[in-house]
């Protein structure tokens, strides 16, 4: 008994998380099977799993996941490269910063999603329109965090390198870039969420495949269980990417104190 409690005490957080997830799913299932039995309104986990297995066995899901993944990864990678590039350019040159900063502010605050119908009219129902939207959604958090990271480097470190005779190239590569890395990683992580939202929502409007397309198609046919399968897949995808990037952040910049 005491052995069990001591194990529990040692890993209290993990145990509690597992218990909480199991409890939550059980309550959801109980409400579904005893209180609200309308499959339109509430779909319990068992029915979600059932329809997931059904979809997998019919081979429907892979196509949608693949389509969203391709849109996401293409737009995201281009967004990261250009975001870092522009962030560095803005940090290095004052003139670039002055010219670009109002536009960046406008585009960052703009809900680009609104343009999704227009992009679909322009680039068609296929991949191109979604990649453009994902790109615009992903680029600005990366840009900001790169810029902020490069410009808010600890002045004492710069002085120390200079005091020991370091030149400005050394300062840039030995102090500024390492100092900016954690914030850049944060930018990469934040972009993931925005890019996923961009991909999903642009699929809502018009697509031939993709998780967003799948969710709307299912919920328009009142197949709530299938729509929830899509949402759960997204949750898993988002969570996994988030955790991987968080892990990468910790590896790349272990000295950085993380918030949230």
């Amino acid at each position, binding site marked *: 008994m005491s052995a069990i409690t001591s194990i529990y005490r040692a890993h209290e957080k993990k145990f509690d998380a597992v218990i909480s997830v199991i409890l939550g799913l059980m309550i959801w299932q109980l409400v579904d099977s005893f209180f609200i039995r309308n499959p339109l309104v509430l779909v319990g986990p068992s029915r979600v799993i059932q329809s997931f297995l059904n979809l997998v066995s019919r081979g429907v899901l892979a196509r949608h996941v693949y389509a969203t993944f391709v849109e996401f990864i293409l737009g995201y990678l281009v967004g990261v490269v250009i975001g870092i590039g522009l962030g560095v350019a803005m940090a290095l040159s004052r003139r670039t910063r002055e010219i670009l900063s109002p536009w960046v502010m406008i585009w960052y605050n703009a809900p680009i999603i609104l343009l999704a119908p227009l992009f679909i009219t322009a680039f068609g129902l296929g991949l191109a329109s979604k990649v453009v939207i994902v790109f615009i959604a992903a680029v600005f958090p990366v840009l900001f965090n790169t810029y902020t990271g490069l410009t808010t480097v600890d002045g004492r470190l710069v002085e120390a390198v200079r005091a020991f005779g370091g030149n400005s190239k050394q300062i840039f590569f030995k102090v500024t870039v390492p100092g900016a890395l954690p914030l850049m990683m944060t930018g990469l992580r934040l972009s993931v969420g925005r890019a996923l939202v961009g991909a*999903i929502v642009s699929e809502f409007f018009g697509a031939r495949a993709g998780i967003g397309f799948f969710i709307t198609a299912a919920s328009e046919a009142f197949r709530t269980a299938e*729509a929830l399968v899509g*949402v759960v897949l997204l949750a898993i995808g988002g969570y996994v990417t988030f955790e991987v990037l968080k892990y990468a952040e910790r590896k790349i910049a272990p000295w950085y104190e993380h918030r949230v």
Partner: protein
Amino acid sequence: MKTAPKKPPRIPSGLRSSRAIGAYSVIAGLVVWQLAYQGLAWTHYFKDYAIYHFLSSPLQVMQSFGELYQSGELLRNSYFSLLEFVYGFLLAIVVGVLIGFIMATNKKINYFLDPWVSCLYATPLVALAPVIMVWFGLGIFPNSLVVFLGAVFPILLNTYTGIKSVRQNLVEVIRAFGGSSTQVFFKVMIPDATPAIITGIRLAVGRAVISVVVAELFGAEAGLGFMVYFYSQRFLPGPVFVALVVLVVFGILSFLALEKVQGWLSPWYTYQLRRTAPGMEMDRS
């Protein structure tokens, strides 16, 4: 970045300040946009590829702004969107701050809620919008719910971090001078966590605006998202850009307003914000 002494500007006039250069840049961008549109309109691509179905020019946007304003459509739709935004957002602030505070102060509840919160935070919850339409139908309530879901987690997590990172030496000082725990709460915890909470609220504004629009694109009888959907279905890009401009202005204004609120609630913190360019928010979540 460099600590070299600053040279005094050679021409100390307002015309060369960075703000003025920003303004020139915006004006130049708009002019280029207009000219490009005019140039395209001369070529046969314009007709062949029906470019006017998805591209508009600044002058056309201004024109459709005038039309929408005159007909009262713009105000009506903005009103509904604002209503949904306010309902959902206020609920998100109340719930987010409350649960964030509880999670930060109670270890057990934190352990139990943490897996759910971090999973839901990483999920693009707008994906739930179609399902919520099935559940609750059309109208203000389901749209506010989408806004709430979009906005609550950044607020919750930032409140949590804010309360967690309250400086312990301040708490100890109050304790040492015989302060009660209510005093610790109101005099230390709340003020010290305010900047983080407001940062969370600022992050949430962007997400909430997107949520409003997406929810309305799906199912609504009025609202800016509805307006966008209506006109883009008719291949009229002008009103779409009008809605975009309105939301950008709203986003920037609410950003500046929250910055003011932050300066007013926690003036000792604002000096850190000054270091970033105005309006350039960094998401440090």
